[in-house]
């Protein structure tokens, strides 16, 4: 019972949505088109579980004086303050009816002043990591690694005016070997071939996995056994 009903729900909703894709109107189609909406709503309910987990973990760290517990205080204070500001639209010029991110609101300040610089800087760490990763991984150890490395080098050079300058001496008849042209050719053809093979494979993986889920063959997500 506890296990069968979820499987029946999965089956019905899966079939209804697939039907909704092929049927242009009626309840099936409505469900297909509204699924993203429904999902977003359920996600908000799930926030209660997520927020609860966050609070519990950090409160526990503080109360047990675990390593680095003062930082958990930072998280707790930041979380609660921002939550109150956001849910009650504190400082929002339009009051409770105002747009959530109206300029001048406190939440807007949290976004522009704290969230944004932190997010952008974390993101920018990638500039350093692509360099360290390529330094380490791009070694001609095996044939495969050599191919990877060569393709990367051609693109790296071809994507800058330096590539054009390096191969500008080539005769007109060999223009296709100039680095920017070679780089574009690799992107447009072999790269496309690889991407396509991966995409077709993924599509089949998604189709088969979805089918296994709908038919109840894959049911780990409900917990295994009984």
């Amino acid at each position, binding site marked *: 019972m506890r296990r069968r009903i979820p499987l029946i729900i999965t089956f019905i909703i899966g079939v209804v949505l697939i039907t909704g894709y092929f049927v242009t109107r009626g309840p099936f189609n409505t469900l297909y088109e509204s699924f993203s909406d429904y999902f977003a709503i359920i996600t908000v309910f799930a926030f209660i579980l997520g927020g609860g987990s966050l609070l519990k973990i950090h409160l526990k760290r503080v109360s047990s004086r675990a390593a680095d517990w003062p930082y958990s205080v930072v998280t707790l204070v930041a979380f609660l303050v921002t939550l109150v500001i956001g849910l009650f639209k504190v400082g929002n010029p339009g009051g409770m009816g105002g747009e959530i*991110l109206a300029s001048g609101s406190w939440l807007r300040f949290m976004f522009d002043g704290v969230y944004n610089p932190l997010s952008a800087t974390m993101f920018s760490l990638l500039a350093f990591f692509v360099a360290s990763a390529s330094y380490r991984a791009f070694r001609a150890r095996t044939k495969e690694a050599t191919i990877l490395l060569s393709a990367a080098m051609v693109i790296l050079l071809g994507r800058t005016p330096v590539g054009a300058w390096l191969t500008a001496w080539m005769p007109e008849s060999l223009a296709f070997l100039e680095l920017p042209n070679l780089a574009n050719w690799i992107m447009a053809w072999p790269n496309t071939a690889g991407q396509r093979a991966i995409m077709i494979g993924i599509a089949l993986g998604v189709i088969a996995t979805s089918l296994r889920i709908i038919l109840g063959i894959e049911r780990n997500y409900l917990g295994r056994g009984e």
Partner: protein
Amino acid sequence: MRIPDSILQIDRRIIFLLIGAAVCIPLLLKPRFQDSPTPIVQSIFDTVERLPAGSRVFLSFDYGPDTAPELDPMAKALVRHTMTRDLEVSFFTLFPEGVGQIKKITDNLLPVEFPDKAYGRDYVNLGYKAGLGGAINTMVVNFRTLVNADAEGTPLDDLPITADVDEMVDYVIILSLTAGDPGLKEWIQFAGDIAGIPVMGGGTAVVAPELYPYYPQQLVGLMGGLKGASEYESALVDRYPAYRNATMEATMRMGPQVVTHVLIVLLVLLGNLAYFLGRAGRGNRAGRKGLAGRTGRGGQS
């Protein structure tokens, strides 16, 4: 320790330092590297050139401030181009943060560079719609159920530019500037393939490789990253020399790119040189990375 080994096991913080320098120094010295458009970018430019004046264009800003350095130059170049060609542009976004990106164009660029263009007549801001790819789907199925007013809440019927827009197919082309999901891929899947509206646009250098497979059947053209933007700028400047000074934003930003790209290539070459020298010295045994020999790989490397 032998020299090749010390090069191979260089502290990665030295690499970090070099990258930092390679970005900062060109930012201070501001060198300029001129570019020329490749076919995949030229195709967007030519399409915009060919559209008759008054054609309705849909321009979706599917990105936030994170990726603005790459995509803003494309947005500006496209807006300048479409406005110069007298096309009617509807701005839109599938990213909540995209609203701010549109505002930068409608508040700062358009009133200054195109004072004769009027809001509601020559361009309109349709604002943000939630629902990711599903939103596109809804717009294609029934445009007005999702979009019935502009970002300020003015009904579409009250704006001359949108009064006749009843369906998505009333737009001759969809342009998207893409930072991730949803973006060009979803526009292709839900609008291009299904409603037959041509789709083109630009993407960050991260999403662009994933979009190449759609070109040229499902995607008219693609600007990939800053380089794509700088190519579009140069196409624009070639055709409309008046923009020579205004639109070189991407071209200017190419300085740090050139230096870091060359630096990475040199580092990789150095690494390989050290690897081969080291391998020659040790009779070809080393170099295979495997679970057994992994323990030495820990710590700072």
